[in-house]
């Protein structure tokens, strides 16, 4: 028995040694979503900097936060969504960005920063990938499609449409259809939006955030509300599927790059962030992930089909109407109440 324990301890010590600071080559630890960086770029960075890049993954912002908040150490760069990045910053988990080490930040899309970013000066977080939410539809079966939230009022499609089972996304859609901000805290506007969603609810098959991808791919549903990355992947395979962000505006989400305050490899971490914002590398990642890395200098290097896709590059007029969903703190309760009333209706 002792031998087993001893062996497992030894294995543990070895594992810890391997991933710790021991060894000749320093290791950079990323805590990210799966398949989020072009694999060739990782190798390139490792060779150029004489280091190893170790990637670990998480499945939701909330579980990642719970783990780091409880004190898990050893990670250098994390890829949280921007609302979570601001929570982490308030909790003191992040190290400030040293702009002297990040010359490529000059390429970050200024318009994105000015209009949408939560951390406009990139003090603690640098944007990595942008996505939006919108509507996908079957071209051959949906007559007179228009990129508008009004699609969910179409009685002829009743029972063949889905809206996301996500309080803020779906309430946000209704608020946008009314011309309000999707981060409003005005009770009257929220009540109006609630009634819109109640009206839409009569036409949809269900609220769904998981099955819409196969649902639209198999034509079980004709119109679905979902995230651009997911739906563009379906559209790229299935010619009959189209995707459009609604003209009234929609939500835009960004995953950021942040360096943890407890990181032991701050210089290397800065080098990596700078590397990801090298225009050629940013273009490669955009192409691989099918989201958009907001790096202006990279846009010219993207293939034409991505350049001209209005669902990836939102037209300026539409972009003006889009917003990032922000955490409303105490005011979240107003949305929860409205959402409960919708579900109970």
């Amino acid at each position, binding site marked *: *028995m002792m031998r087993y324990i001893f062996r497992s301890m030894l*294995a543990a010590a070895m594992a810890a040694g391997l991933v710790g600071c021991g060894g000749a080559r320093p290791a950079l630890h990323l805590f990210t979503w799966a398949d989020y960086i072009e694999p060739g770029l990782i190798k390139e960075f490792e060779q150029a900097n004489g280091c190893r890049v170790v990637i670990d993954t998480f499945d939701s912002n909330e579980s990642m936060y719970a783990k780091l908040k409880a004190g898990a150490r*050893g990670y250098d760069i994390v890829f949280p969504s921007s609302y979570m990045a601001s929570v982490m910053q308030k909790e003191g988990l992040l190290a400030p960005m040293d702009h002297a080490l990040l010359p490529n930040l000059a390429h970050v899309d200024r318009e994105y920063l000015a209009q949408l970013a939560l951390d406009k000066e990139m003090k603690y977080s640098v944007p990595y990938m942008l996505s939006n939410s919108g509507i996908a539809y079957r071209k051959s079966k949906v007559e007179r499609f228009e990129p508008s939230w009004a699609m969910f009022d179409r009685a002829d499609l009743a029972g063949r449409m889905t809206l996301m089972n996500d309080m803020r996304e779906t309430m946000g859609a209704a608020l946008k259809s009314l011309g309000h901000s999707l981060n409003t805290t005005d009770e009257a506007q929220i009540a109006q939006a609630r009634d819109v969603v109640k009206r839409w609810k009569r036409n949809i098959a269900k609220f769904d955030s998981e099955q819409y991808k196969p649902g639209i791919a198999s034509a079980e549903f004709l119109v679905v509300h979902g995230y651009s990355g997911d739906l563009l992947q379906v559209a790229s395979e299935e010619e009959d599927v189209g995707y459009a962000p609604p003209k009234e505006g929609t939500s835009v989400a960004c995953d950021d790059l942040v360096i943890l305050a407890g990181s032991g490899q701050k210089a290397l971490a800065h080098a990596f962030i700078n590397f990801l914002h090298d225009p050629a590398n940013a273009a490669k990642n955009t192409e691989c992930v099918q989201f958009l890395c907001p790096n202006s200098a990279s846009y010219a290097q993207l293939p034409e089909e991505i350049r001209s896709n209005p669902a990836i590059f939102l037209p300026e007029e539409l972009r003006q109407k889009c917003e990032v969903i922000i955490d409303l703190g105490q005011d979240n309760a107003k949305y929860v109440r409205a959402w409960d009333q919708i579900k109970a209706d």
Partner: protein
Amino acid sequence: MRRSRLPLLAGIGVLLFLYLPMVALVAQSFNASRFGGRWMGFSLKWYARLFENRPIWDALWNSLFVALVGTGVSVVLGTLSGWAMHRYRGGLQRVHHSLVYAPLVVPDVLMGISLLLLFVNSGVPLGLGTISLAHITFCISYVAFVVLGRLQEFDDSVLDAARDLGAGWWTTFWRVVLPMLAPGIASGAVLAFTLSIDDFVITFFVAGPGSTTLPVHVYSMIRHGTPTLINALSGLLMAVTFGLVLLGQRFIRQSR
């Protein structure tokens, strides 16, 4: 009296409900379509892609390492614990029984977070070592109860017989007790291995840099990875798991 057909029908219904989704998943893993919606032809490309995907294999090795260490240690400790619960009675054993029983009913999230806090506060670096310790913690209970179940059929008089025939405690243990318990220990080991290899919640919390296991990686892929790749992987894992379960059942049958 005519026998009712109802149990048969209910049985078939339950089996279909349990296994049909798995059949569908394995079938979808051969679907050329990326989203597993419409059937777009038979293809092995997801299996081919799976073999090229390095992070998945790294994660698989981590999972196997943890499962083997976890199973090895928990089988020894669990068997001893089962033996103690069977052999000795008294207040202390009742405490022991409830302590071993607790991990079976404690929610995973609670166990994950509390182990994480323990490791962080005692300065143990997170990694494969901490995942292995966590897995040993919950696997011991399963092994102990499987072995205990086996011991309930154990005839204690063989111990006296062995002693009468001049066997020392070591010979008794090695030549009599262990062979009789072997099927129970083996099925406990199989159970521990399968539990360890699928665990997500506890593992996520106690994993450290460089020790992502397969389930943790798979959950992360669901967000924007390729679901069909996961189907192919689940197909493979299911084949391995079913293989192990069948093996475990054969051990049990042989013992009868």
